[in-house]
């Protein structure tokens, strides 16, 4: 009897939050198959569990998502294994294979499965082939998972050192931050006290060009990073070197001194207050919205400082992740005259605060804003006039105003989308002083209504025209 509650508890729930593709896992558990089932029971059970997935796939919660992935994976398996899935022997093979296969997936499932298949399924080569394809497909998916699953705050880390055969004697470092002050952090680097050779440690933000285990000359070593100086002290069976380094992500590489050569140890990486990435300032009305990508480390908050383009930051704010999410970024109220924003990530290191290097961006002053209004002036015994009232937020010279008339349901998007009715200018606008210019009222036949009057503004410097309310632009 298929126990849905147990299945939910033991299979669906552990897969909660899986998106894109299912990770490799216990095939028999996912199908809830008892290896002792006979062929008829197996067929019935597969029908039942597939129907269960189809039903649960409609659920609006995580179960729906997981069941859709199970259905998708099942379809892929049916394509490769085919009728073998209805054979209890095939499932018994899976029961034997599963533990070895699962542990091996992280390395190279394809080769391993070949070995296993060769020893246990000599009589069923076609099944072994199907199985190989299935597990290989899952392993491929597994390797690509980090690309599928969102990494919203992936810091730009240096690539690790080139892969090398693991050496049992490779010197391995432990790196631990102890205290920080502003953008400097004190770290403790330690290695086993049994290492009798002299150890040098170099650090850099760049990836190491050396291969673990190789022997290099001191001159080669000096081409990468800077040496961390100091005298190691013995503590708890380890030799501990204390050094002060800048915050951010750094790579630490130990070298064992062996005569005139240095033997490269295993690199260790540590990020302390990793800088905020992709700082972006976008105009939002008169203000601006600042956004960035948070690092994945334990950043407490971002310190945002802003001010005029050529001035020191006059305003500061501490923005937590929650405040950032709730506020849809960080809003600066008025940036019409331009703004320069500097942000630093602030992290906790042993009770002290570490500040990341600053990330800086600027926004140029907003273009001059020229607002216009339209009004009809009726004249006794004469044609009526169109009064265009222009108002700029700063002084503007040689402003040309194109009055465009267009028929249709919607207003013209640009000046070529209508008929040029009048060209006003060149005009000189003084900041906040309205200028009224008159031109004949456009004569629009009734059959062309509704029509629109819209002004397009051109000036030697960049300007933006602000339209009046829509009903002032419409000729009914």
């Amino acid at each position, binding site marked *: 009897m298929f126990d849905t509650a147990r299945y939910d508890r033991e299979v669906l729930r552990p897969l909660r939050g899986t998106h894109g593709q299912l990770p490799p896992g216990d095939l028999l558990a996912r199908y809830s198959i008892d290896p002792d089932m006979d062929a008829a029971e197996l067929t019935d059970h597969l029908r039942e569990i597939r129907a269960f997935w189809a039903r649960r796939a409609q659920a609006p919660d995580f179960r729906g998502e997981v069941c859709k992935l199970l259905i998708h994976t099942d379809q892929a398996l049916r394509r490769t294994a085919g009728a073998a899935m209805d054979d209890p022997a095939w499932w018994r093979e899976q029961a034997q294979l599963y533990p070895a296969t699962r542990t091996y997936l992280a390395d190279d499932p394809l080769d391993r499965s070949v070995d296993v298949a060769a020893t246990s399924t000599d009589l069923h080569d076609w099944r072994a082939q199907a199985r190989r394809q299935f597990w290989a497909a899952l392993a491929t998916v597994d390797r690509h998972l980090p690309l599928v699953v*969102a990494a919203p705050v992936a810091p730009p880390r240096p690539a690790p050192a080139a892969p090398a055969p693991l050496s049992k004697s490779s010197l391995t470092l432990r790196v631990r931050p102890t205290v920080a002050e502003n953008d400097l952090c004190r770290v403790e680097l330690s290695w086993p006290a049994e290492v009798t050779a002299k150890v040098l440690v170099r650090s850099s933000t760049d990836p190491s060009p050396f291969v673990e285990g190789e022997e290099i000359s001191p001159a080669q070593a000096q081409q990468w990073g800077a040496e961390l100086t100091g005298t190691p002290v013995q503590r708890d069976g380890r030799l501990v070197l204390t050094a002060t380094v800048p915050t951010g992500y750094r790579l630490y590489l130990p070298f064992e001194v062996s005569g005139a050569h240095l033997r490269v140890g295993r690199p260790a990486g540590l990020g302390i207050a990793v800088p905020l990435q992709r700082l*972006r300032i976008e105009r939002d009305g008169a203000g601006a919205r600042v956004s960035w990508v948070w690092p994945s480390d334990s950043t407490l908050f971002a310190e945002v400082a802003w001010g005029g383009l050529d001035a020191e930051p006059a305003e500061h704010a501490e923005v937590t992740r929650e405040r950032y999410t709730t506020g849809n970024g960080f809003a600066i109220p008025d940036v019409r005259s331009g703004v320069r924003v500097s942000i630093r990530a602030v992290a906790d290191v042993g009770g002290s605060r570490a500040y990341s290097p600053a990330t800086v961006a600027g926004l140029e002053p907003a273009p001059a804003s020229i607002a216009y209004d339209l009004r009809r002036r009726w004249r006794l015994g004469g044609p009526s006039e169109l009064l265009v009232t222009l108002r700029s937020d700063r002084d503007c010279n040689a402003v040309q105003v194109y009055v465009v008339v267009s028929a249709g349901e919607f207003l013209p998007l640009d000046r070529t989308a209508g008929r040029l009715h009048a060209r006003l200018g060149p005009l000189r606008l003084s900041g906040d002083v309205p200028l009224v210019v008159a031109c004949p009222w456009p004569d629009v036949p009734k059959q062309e209504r509704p029509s629109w009057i819209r002004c397009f503004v051109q000036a030697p410097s960049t300007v933006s025209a602000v339209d009046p309310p829509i009903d002032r632009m419409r000729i009914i």
Partner: protein
Amino acid sequence: MTAKLACPFCYNPIRRRGDLWFLCRGRATARKAACRPSVDEARRRLTGFAEPTLPAFPPAVEPSLMPKNKVHCPRCGGETAIRACPHCHTRLPQEFGVSASPMLVMVGARGTGKTVYLTVLSRELESAKIGHEFNATVQPIGEGQDGFGSQSQWLRQNIRRVYDEFQLFPATAQAVDGRKEPLVLEWRVEHANRLGLRRSRTNYLSFYDTAGEDLAGDIETQGLHYLRAANFLILLLDPFQLRGARDELRLPAAATPRHEPTKDVLARITEALKLSDHWNGRKITVPVAVAFTKMDAFYDLLGESHPLRRERRRPGGYDESTGQTVHQQMGALLKAWGGDDINSHLRTYYRDYQYFFVSALGAEPNYDNATVNPIGVHPDRVEEPLLWLMHRGGLVPKVAP
């Protein structure tokens, strides 16, 4: 004419608050044993909820003009004041029926971003910003069952997925037998009455998110009784489906999957609505907010001084002036993108519609990986279609010019 009151869960009309049923609380009395929960067939049929619930029963016929708020269960004799829908027997909030509770149906072709929009809109409505602006408290209501968590759980899960996990959604599952649980939000607002006294008013906004596949066939569309019961429609249009818009952008193939033409989907919705009370013989009378989604893709193209990006609504209600500007600008863009047929269809068949500019995410996502932009979710103008509709329904005021 659409019923003024309807169950926010099953969308069946309810004549008046006095017609609401009661739900037994399952409390034993001195003389009788308590009622036991059992599966309610009516509820299962209408809403798909198949968990055991305590029995619902109709109110006794009272000669009095004042219906009782507390009654006794005819089976166990226990006292109860819990209200339930007379059709689907789903528990309703105590204040349901006192004020208007409009039903909003979101329609749109597959891949227009309805689920993302509903998730982001709900979160925005629950945010402190909207709360302060309207002096309102907004929260999802409803109960769930095993395997089919409540819509509030669904919403929390979706919000977590989009905001914390930076994941987008696969295509929404097709409604089972044409039904799917709506998302019901309680909108409780404090306001001053004509005498200046502070009063609270509670409205229930029921959102029904149609799956794109539900609109793929004539029969399914006609089966959407939610569409016919709606008080308002939010029609989401994907501009990427318009060739003119697509040509202006450099979009990855994953952003422009081949779907049925927008006009065909719109025509199907229209046909379904023509079979309902919304059709007055000439036009469809239900107000339709036509929201163009994914507009963040056009930010660079429009430029920061474009009215659609520069002009912001004034807070405190629906801003008619900004709304008209957006309508005009979007209408002109629709025409420029070769979507004249969509506008003609709307003009011909719909009496009351308005265009909106919406970006639920506020920054271009990674369409290939279906992930949100790493800078996070920055919704842009998502609440404007709803404010317009709520203004139409008399629930929010118009901002003074």
